[in-house]
């Protein structure tokens, strides 16, 4: 057989193989699957909350393979822009909804409920090769990050630090993490210097900081805990000493001001559909395990009960 015919045969075999695989849905679950539910639940929003919702969607699919749950990562702001015009059913958010977004939702006839799903400690991160910085006060953070800041050397931040330049990494303006950080540190919404490596993709930030020994950045705690050996946590001092973010300090609020709750917002019109209700209950039932697995801090069970109550009281005909 000539080489040409062999390659042709291989090429056709490959395509036939792929089509054959398509006929065969993977059955990865050991749980009883319920194929009766079907439908699509559109979710979009925060990249911080994304790992949780992604985990839930993944596990949900194993139990209810007929329901399609695409999860986007447009950022908290971007997610809300779609949510308030009814394009998405659930919006992930790492900050609470702003009044201007509430007004837009009203304008478009979108009613919603807010469900808290976990706690995050927004973390300040440096490169592991950085051996001179352990802690930053909120004032120092503000001096670094406020709009128009020209600070680009460690020595400008605090006396005694080396006279070398640093490079900043952080989320871009569509991110709820960005909104929350600027509010808590700079005390002004969306006010930040703009000459840093901005990305809506926290994973790009992790790679950037871990590859740059003069880096300083901030993002959600779960992204630190997913790669702790590549990143160095910096403690934050808001007046009562240097506190590192950890499940304990986030939970009891001592890591401040950067501890924050994470939310999902649900369009009440979507609650008319059985698959959405089932999904939300599944979310809240599994939140404790999945939130911890992803690297965030779960809420007290009572708060999840509140969420469940909110869901069941908000949907109309189905019960």
């Amino acid at each position: 057989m000539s080489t040409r015919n062999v390659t042709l045969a291989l090429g056709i075999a490959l395509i036939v193989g792929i089509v054959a695989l398509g006929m065969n849905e993977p059955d990865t679950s050991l749980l009883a699957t319920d194929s009766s539910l079907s439908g699509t639940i559109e979710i979009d929003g925060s990249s911080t909350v994304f790992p949780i919702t992604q985990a839930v969607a993944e596990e949900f699919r194993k139990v209810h393979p007929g329901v399609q749950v695409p999860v986007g990562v447009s950022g908290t702001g971007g997610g809300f822009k779609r949510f308030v015009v009814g394009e998405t059913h659930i919006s992930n958010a790492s900050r609470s909804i702003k009044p201007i977004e509430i007004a837009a939702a009203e304008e478009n006839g979108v009613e919603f409920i807010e469900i808290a799903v976990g706690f995050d400690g927004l973390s300040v991160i440096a490169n592991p090769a950085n051996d001179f910085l352990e802690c930053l006060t909120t004032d120092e953070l503000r001096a670094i990050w406020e709009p128009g800041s020209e600070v680009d050397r460690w020595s400008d931040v605090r006396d005694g630090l080396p006279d070398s330049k640093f490079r900043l990494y952080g989320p871009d303006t569509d991110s709820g993490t960005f909104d929350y950080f600027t509010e808590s540190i700079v005390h002004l919404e969306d006010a930040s210097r703009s000459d840093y490596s901005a990305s809506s993709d926290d994973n790009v930030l992790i790679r950037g900081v871990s590859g740059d020994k003069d880096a300083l950045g901030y993002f959600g705690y779960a992204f630190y805990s997913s790669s702790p050996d590549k990143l160095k946590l910096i403690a934050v001092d808001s007046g009562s000493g240097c506190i590192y973010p950890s499940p304990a300090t986030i939970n009891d609020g001592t890591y401040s001001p950067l501890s924050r709750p994470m939310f999902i917002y649900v369009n009440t019109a979507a609650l008319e559909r059985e698959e959405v209700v089932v999904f939300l209950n599944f979310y809240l039932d599994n939140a404790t395990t999945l939130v911890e697995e992803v690297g965030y801090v779960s809420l007290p069970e009572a708060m999840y009960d509140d969420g469940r109550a909110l869901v069941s009281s908000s949907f109309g005909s189905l019960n």
Partner: protein
Amino acid sequence: MTGFRASVESRRHARRWVRAEQKVVLVVLVLATLVSVLATVGIIYTLLKESYGFFQVVPVWDFITGTKWAPLFEPQAFGVLPLIAGTLLAAGLAGIVALTLGLGAAIYLSEYAPDRVRRIIKPVLEVLAGIPTVVYGFFALSFVTPLLQSFLPIPVIFNVLSAGIVMGLMIMPMVSTLSEDAMVAVPRELRDAAYALGATRFEVATKVVVPAALPGIVAAFILALSRAIGETLIVTIAAGATPNLTLNPLESIQTMTAYIVQVSLGETPQGTLVFKTIFAVGLLLFLMTLIMNIVGRWVVRRYTERY
């Protein structure tokens, strides 16, 4: 009707159908052809319409000459020079790599290589051109950047040098193939004359063939540069997302294409000024590549000697 008359009638009938069929087909084919026209109209209309709205708010002069690009922050700044600088820096690095390797390969293939070798090498180089750009981006980030960092003081993982080198590899086959085509078209008589005078292959290549093929080589280079300017994935993955007005290849930058990707992934809604920046930057990119493509083709037409 029977017999001869019937057969004439039926043939006339058939011819009428055939003519009608041709008319219908012609209409369908013209409509198909119009799609390509509509595509161009669509591109130009979309880019111009949204850009017009953008330039109502941001004066064209500020856009083109401003040195700070920060549309997503407060206070907003819309000077596009950092993006242009990033694009040109990346494309320039790619061009240097592609021209050196591509022209060298072309000279080798057209002047030195025996036929057998040429037949094997050409397809292999074509494979370089066929590899998807996302694979090149991965290669830049996972192989080239660590390699460069081992002997150059590059402080950041996302840098232009890595992306530029890999882009150069990607467009090298284009320079090589087009240059070689131009060189092979140079008539043998010119080479024969030079060899008859005792020239070496190097002298024939550099003093006879390359000068004769120069329009084609220049056009190849311009077209390859245009491709590099329009390239998206490699720079998005490996060069960074920091608008930076610099000529230092060891820094992170952001190209026009990487910016467009960044904004469109963030789900900016229609009608906002930030959304319109996609179109303003897109218009600039479109015009740059269009002009380069036209110039490249014009160079070939105007300057190619017909022997």
